[in-house]
C-alpha cells in the first residue's frame, strides 16, 4: 500500500509540475514572439471598433492584465495569482463576461461529448481489432483496410461528411448546435429529445475515427502476442484456447492503454476542431469564436483548459495503468 502511495504521489507531482510549465508556456510563448505582441493583440482586437471608449477600455484591460510596466517575472506572478482566483480576464467578443464564465459553460459540452465517445470508440475498436487478429482470413482482410482508411480520415473531415450526408442530404439529423435554437436549456422532455438528436452526429463521427485507429493498434498487438512463446507453451501444455486468449488480450491491452495516453492530446485536438463543424457549443467552437474575433483572453483561456483536460485524462490513465499492469503492481509490492 505504501508503495502505491509513493507511486501515485510521484505521478501526481509530475503532473502538477507539467501543469505549472504549461501555464508558463501559455504566458511566455506569445511574449517570445518578435515585435510587441500585446500591442499587436490590442490593435487586432480593436480593428473595426468605432467606439472610442470601448477601445480605451480594451487597451486598459490589456495593460492592466499584462502589467506591461512591470518586469516579466512580476507579470507572470500576477498572471498566476489571477489564475488561482479563477480570473482569466474578460472576454472581448462577449464583453463584459469573464472568460471563466464563457469557458465554464462550454467545457461541460466538450466533456460530455468526448469522454463517452472516446471510451466507447476505444472499447469497440479494441474488441474489433482483437477479433480480427483472432479470426484472420476473411473478416480481417475485409475490415482492416476500411479501419485503416477511417483512422487516416481527419476528424473534421468525418464530421463534414456526416453533416453533409445526414443533415443536409437525408435531413434526418440537425445541422448544427447542441440543442434546438428555439429551446432553452431545461429538463423538459422536448429539450432532452433535441439534446440527444444533436448529440448523435458528433458522437458517432468521433466513435468512427477512434474505432479505426484503435482496432489497427489492437490487431497488430494481438497478432504479436499470439505468436509469443508463452502462447505456444500454453498450447503445448494443453491449456484451453479460451483461457489463452484471455491472457493474450490482457497483455495486448496494456500497450493499448499506453497508446491511448500518448495519442490523447492529438485526439482531443482533432475532436475539438471537429466540434466547430457541428457548431457544438463546446470548447472548440468557443476557441474558434475567440480566434475569429481576435479575443485573446478567450483563446488563452481555451488553450489552458484544453491542456488541463489532456493532463487530467493522462493522469487518470496512468493511475488506471498502475492498477491493471501486474508489473507495476509487483514493483509496488516489493518496496
Amino acid at each position, binding site marked *: 500500500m505504501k508503495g502505491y502511495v509513493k507511486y501515485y504521489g510521484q505521478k501526481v507531482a509530475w503532473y502538477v509540475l*507539467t501543469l505549472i510549465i504549461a501555464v508558463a508556456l501559455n504566458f511566455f510563448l506569445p511574449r517570445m514572439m518578435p515585435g510587441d505582441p500585446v500591442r499587436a493583440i490590442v490593435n487586432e482586437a480593436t480593428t473595426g471598433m468605432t467606439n472610442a471608449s470601448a477601445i480605451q477600455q480594451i487597451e486598459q484591460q490589456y495593460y492592466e492584465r499584462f502589467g506591461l510596466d512591470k518586469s516579466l517575472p512580476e507579470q507572470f506572478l500576477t498572471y498566476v495569482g489571477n489564475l488561482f482566483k479563477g480570473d482569466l480576464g474578460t472576454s472581448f467578443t462577449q464583453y463584459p463576461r469573464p472568460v471563466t464564465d464563457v469557458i465554464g459553460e462550454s467545457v461541460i459540452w466538450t466533456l460530455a461529448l468526448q469522454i463517452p465517445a472516446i471510451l466507447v470508440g476505444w472499447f469497440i475498436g479494441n474488441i474489433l481489432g482483437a477479433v480480427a487478429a483472432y479470426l484472420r482470413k476473411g473478416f480481417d482482410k475485409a475490415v482492416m483496410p476500411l479501419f485503416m482508411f477511417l483512422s*487516416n480520415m481527419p476528424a473534421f473531415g468525418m464530421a463534414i461528411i456526416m453533416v453533409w450526408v445526414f443533415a443536409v442530404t437525408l435531413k434526418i439529423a440537425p445541422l448544427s448546435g447542441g440543442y434546438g435554437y428555439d429551446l432553452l436549456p431545461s429538463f423538459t422532455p422536448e429539450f432532452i429529445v433535441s439534446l440527444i438528436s444533436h448529440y448523435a452526429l458528433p458522437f458517432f463521427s468521433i466513435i468512427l475515427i477512434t474505432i479505426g485507429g484503435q482496432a489497427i493498434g489492437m490487431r497488430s498487438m494481438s497478432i504479436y502476442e499470439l505468436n509469443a512463446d508463452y502462447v505456444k507453451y500454453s498450447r503445448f501444455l494443453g491449456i484451453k484456447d479460451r483461457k489463452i486468449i484471455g491472457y493474450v488480450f490482457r497483455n495486448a491491452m496494456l500497450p493499448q492503454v499506453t497508446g491511448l495516453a500518448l495519442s490523447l492530446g492529438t485526439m482531443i485536438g482533432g475532436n475539438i476542431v471537429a466540434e466547430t463543424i457541428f457548431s457544438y457549443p463546446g470548447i472548440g467552437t468557443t476557441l474558434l469564436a475567440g480566434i475569429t474575433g481576435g479575443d485573446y483572453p478567450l*483563446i488563452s483561456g481555451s488553450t489552458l483548459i484544453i491542456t488541463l483536460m489532456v493532463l487530467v485524462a493522462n493522469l487518470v490513465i496512468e493511475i488506471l495503468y498502475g492498477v491493471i499492469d501486474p508489473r507495476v503492481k509487483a514493483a509496488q509490492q516489493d518496496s
Partner: protein
Amino acid sequence: MLHQIKQVFRSPKFIVGFIIFMIILLMAIFYPLISSVGPMQSISKAPFTAPGTYVNIEDAVRDTGGQLTLELPIVENRIEDALTADEKQKMITWLEDNGGVAAGELSADDIETLINTWNSTYDPTLVVQGMLTSAREEYKRIDIRVKSVLSVTGVTIAEQGEDGLEVTGTIDYKRFINVNDVANTFTFPLGADNFGRDVLTELTSAILTSLRVGLIAGLIATAIGLALGLLAGYVGGLVDNLITFITNLFTVIPSFVLLILISNSISSSARGVEVVAMVIGFTAWPWTCRSVRSQVISLRNRDHVNLSKLSGHSMPKIILRDILPYVASYVVMALILQISSGILAEAQLSMLGLGPSTTEVATLGLMMNWSQKFSAWQVGAWWAFLPVILSIAFISFSLNLMNTGLDQVFNPQLRDS
C-alpha cells in the same frame, strides 16, 4: 542499400501505399501544367458552380451553322418543366368535370395522354356554371402555356439594330448544336469553389503546397527529434535526464495547443506557408526524439560500439558511423509519419483560421477553411469539400500504408504471418 530497397518493394502494403501516393503526387505535379487556367484564377462568376461542361450562352444562340435537328422526347421534358404538379392536377380535374372524361382515366404521370386529351377537349369559351372568373382565367393561362410549349416556331432572336430590334432568326426546340462547335466552353471536372475557381486545378496545386508543408515540417521535426534523441540516448546522464524531461513534458502538453498559441502570436502578415510549416515542425519533434532515444539506448552497449570507444573514436564519429546506420530505417519511418501528421496539422490549424494567411496559394487546409466560411456543405456543394477531405485522407492513408510496409520489412517480429 539496394537490397533493402528491393526488400521494401516486396511488401504488398508498401506497394499499395506507394502507388496511391505516386498517383496523387503525379496528378498534383502534372495537372496544373495541362490545365488551361491558373489554380487561383476566378472563372465562374457564381459561387459553387456544379461540375459539368459550360457553354457560352451567346455563342449557343448565335451559332447557326452545324445545327442538328433531333427527334428526342423533348416535348415531355419541356412540359414537365413548364407545368407544376398542381397545375397538372387542375387540368385533370377540369377534364373530369367538364370534358366528359371518366374519373381515374387520366393521371399526372401519363403526360402524353393528358396533353392530347386536353388539346382535343378543352374549350376556353366554355363558361362553367359556378366557376369563379379567376379560376377560368387560370385555366386559360395553363392552356396558353401548353400551346406555347408545343409550338414549333420556337424562340425568335432579335438583335439591337439601327432602328431598334431586328429579327435575325428563330430557334425551335428541335435544334441542337454540337458542343464541340461552340467556341467558348469550359469544363469544371469538379465544379468551382466559392471564389469561382476550378476546384480540380486548385486542389492539385493545394496538394502540392500541402505536401511541401508536410515535408518542411517533417524534416524539421525529424531533424530535431533525431539530434536530441541521439544525444540523450548516447550521452546519458544529466543530458539524458534533461531531454527526457522536456520530451515527456511535450508529449503530455498537446502540440495542438502549442500550435494554436504560437500561430496566434505570429502576426497574420508574417504567417506564410513556410512559417506555418516551420511552426508545425518545431512542435512535432517530441515523439520522434522519444523513440530514437530508446532505440539508441538499446544500441549503446553493443560490442561494435564498445569496440569503437576502445579504439578512441570521437563521439560524433561513433554516433554517425556506429549508431546512426542502425536507426536509419526507423528515422525514415518517423519522417513519413511526421509528413502525414504535418499535413493534418496544417489542415486543422487552417480550419481554425490560424493557417497560412495568404490568398495567393491554396493549401488543403485553406480550401477547407474557405468552404466552411462559405457554408459549402449547408448548400450541398459537395465538390468544394469532399475531394479535399478525400485527398487528405488518401495522402495520409498511403503514407501510413508505406510506413506499415517498411515496419514489417525492418522489424521481422511484426510480420504477420
